[in-house]
């Protein structure tokens, strides 16, 4: 029958486009390895995974928003704010330039949870402005991005810190970002495990929960979602809040991994995250995106960074290659769903 043929060709087309990014990833690794076989080592792999970890968590947060057909420009600045907050409360007691000189020793989890909550509140504000005040996400999160940087800079500029980089972080805190399970060649960094765990939880949320299904529905067709009896405003607020919490976690990890923080932490991270999502198959028109896709998108960008530096290609060339990949990915995406409407 004619019908069947049509669907089959669609399926084949769907197959190649579905796996296109994996093919790009493999080609990238092969290309770099041919150039310098030393690239294929456990050490490079570990470095790539470590560098991908916080990016992956931010990208997963951004993916929530993109799938609802929104966008989030505030991600990077929220990372910066939460990095500063967690770092400011987790310095060694005998460190000379403490942010809060008289702060007593706190249990590790208290500042961490606090930072994540701050991230979540920023997300809540985004969600409220988008869903209740009907401000387009681009503008709503632009406002948050600017204002959060202001808040962070005010905090960072408080006496006695006066905008000095925050350092001297407690070992138990920096261990999260730089420690690992096991030792030597085959050790696994905590931060990689955290990212994998977060990815798993996000995958469950996307695929196995009402919130996930409603997220795809809202992004797929917000009017139809409303008619179907989905409380769109409520779910959008939840989704922005979850994304904010993920940025908060990423900020904590960023401070822990680098052993410090300044108010410029996280600057422009949202653009990397959006790029990784888009390359990973998240549609900017909403309703489409998977966790494995986002993870591969993040890996592709890290490998471009790390691998091309490894074989000595100028960082300027890296930017050009990244730019081309972003545009090509979206052009591909648009072609794929050209008949959507």
């Amino acid at each position, binding site marked *: 029958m004619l019908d069947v043929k049509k669907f089959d060709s669609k399926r084949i087309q769907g197959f190649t486009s579905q796996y296109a990014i994996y093919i790009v990833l493999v080609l990238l690794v092969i290309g770099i390895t041919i150039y310098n076989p030393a690239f294929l080592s456990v050490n490079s792999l570990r470095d790539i995974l470590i560098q991908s970890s916080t990016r992956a968590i931010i990208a997963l947060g951004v993916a929530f928003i993109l799938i609802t057909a929104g966008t989030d420009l505030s991600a990077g600045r929220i990372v910066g704010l939460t990095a500063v907050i967690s770092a400011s409360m987790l310095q060694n007691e005998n460190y000379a330039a403490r942010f809060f000189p008289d702060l007593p020793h706190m249990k590790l989890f208290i500042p961490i949870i606090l930072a994540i909550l701050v991230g979540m509140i920023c997300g809540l504000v985004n969600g409220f402005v988008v869903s209740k005040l009907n401000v387009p996400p681009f503008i709503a999160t632009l406002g948050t991005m600017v204002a959060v940087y202001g808040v962070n800079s005010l905090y960072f500029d408080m006496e006695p810190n006066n905008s000095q980089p925050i350092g001297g972080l407690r070992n138990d805190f920096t261990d999260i970002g730089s420690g690992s399970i096991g030792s030597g060649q085959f050790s696994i960094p905590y931060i990689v495990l955290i990212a994998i765990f977060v990815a798993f939880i996000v995958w469950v949320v996307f695929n196995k929960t*009402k919130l996930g*299904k409603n997220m795809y529905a809202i992004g*797929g067709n917000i009017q139809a979602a*409303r*008619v179907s009896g989905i*409380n769109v405003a409520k779910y959008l607020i939840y989704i922005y809040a979850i994304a904010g919490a993920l940025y908060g976690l990423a900020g904590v990890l960023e401070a822990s991994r680098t052993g410090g923080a300044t108010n410029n932490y996280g600057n422009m991270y949202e653009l990397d995250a959006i790029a990784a999502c888009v390359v990973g198959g998240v549609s900017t028109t909403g*309703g489409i995106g998977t966790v494995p896709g986002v993870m591969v998108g993040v890996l592709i960008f890290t490998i471009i960074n790390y691998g091309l530096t490894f074989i000595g290609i100028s960082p300027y060339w890296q930017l050009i290659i990244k730019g081309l990949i972003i545009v090509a990915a979206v052009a591909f995406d648009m072609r794929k769903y050209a*008949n959507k409407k």
Partner: protein
Amino acid sequence: MYKDTEELFRELDIDLKPNTIVGKLSVSKIQSIEIAKAVSFHSRVIVMDEPTSSLTKVEVEHLFRIIRDLKKRGVAIIYISHKMEEILQISDEVTIMRDGLKIGTWPASELTTDTMISKMVGRDLTHRFPVKENVPGDVILKVSELTSPISKSFKDISFELRKGEILGIGGLVGAQRTELIEALFGLRDISSGSIALNGKKVKIKSAEDAKKLGMALLTEERRVTGIFSVLAVHENASIANLGRYRKGFFLLDGKRKKREADIMVDKLRTKTPSTKTLIMNLSGGNQQKVLLARWLLTEPDILLLDEPTRGIDVGAKFEIYTIIKDLAKQGKSIIMISSEMPELLGMSDRIMVMSEGRLTGILEGDAATEEEIMRLAAQH
């Protein structure tokens, strides 16, 4: 440019000023502009795809005058429509297609509505509508003096809906029928009046409320407010019913969800390669069945159907009619807006007619005639 446009509008008998913003115009006016555009290109062939689907009878007449005028100027017109009466009225030659294949081409004079339908369906349809088997029971929904806050919208609407009844709503475009049922479903505001379900007054502020009260709504604009085009058929079918598949604290029972959706989609005889297929790859009729499945999964007592067979081919139409009559037989109550007279007359137990936001009459289905409905629909 303005002058040329004015000239063009006058030639085509279009009552518009060139500097009007198109977004503020009615569908029929926008369509006239589309036609004017085609004429201004000196097009030799103009393809019109369902040009009358949202036009009133008067507007259709106007469109036909334009078409005849274009014909005189030597323009060929391909006119795609589901409305048999219109096709016979306007065409010289009729080509019938089914499932992507051409069945044949005949001079319009050799065809009748019935012969066209039988060629389209591929079998003889002795009845265009299934037999009535439903028996209306007690009043389930009572609407009293429902009024919209918008002055030109519906006003003082009172009616009753019985269990197992199909209540048709007729009227011309602009009669505010869609607005009325969307307000019943909580999608539009109400300034005064009340809604009582099973004798109890209810407040419906959102579709979520309506759903909880056992109501379902199939909207007129399937693509705009119905389907999630990039999601799979089974996801489309289950989306309104997620609350029932809760497993544990926040997880969903995905297997049961998909199984129940699959069963319902299959029960309505939806043609789809698999329920994992994206709904955008289905025909309009099959999309409509998936949307019906979506709402039937919520086990509603009252279904509000807004032009349920709009843009659907004749074969699938009959299937949808059968489903609707079946639902009524099972005791579900149905409110059905339709702009197609035969559909209103063939399906409804009672027909309520609206004109410019007001209820102008309620007719018993058996006693109603096309003329009477038209008379009420045009009443001011």
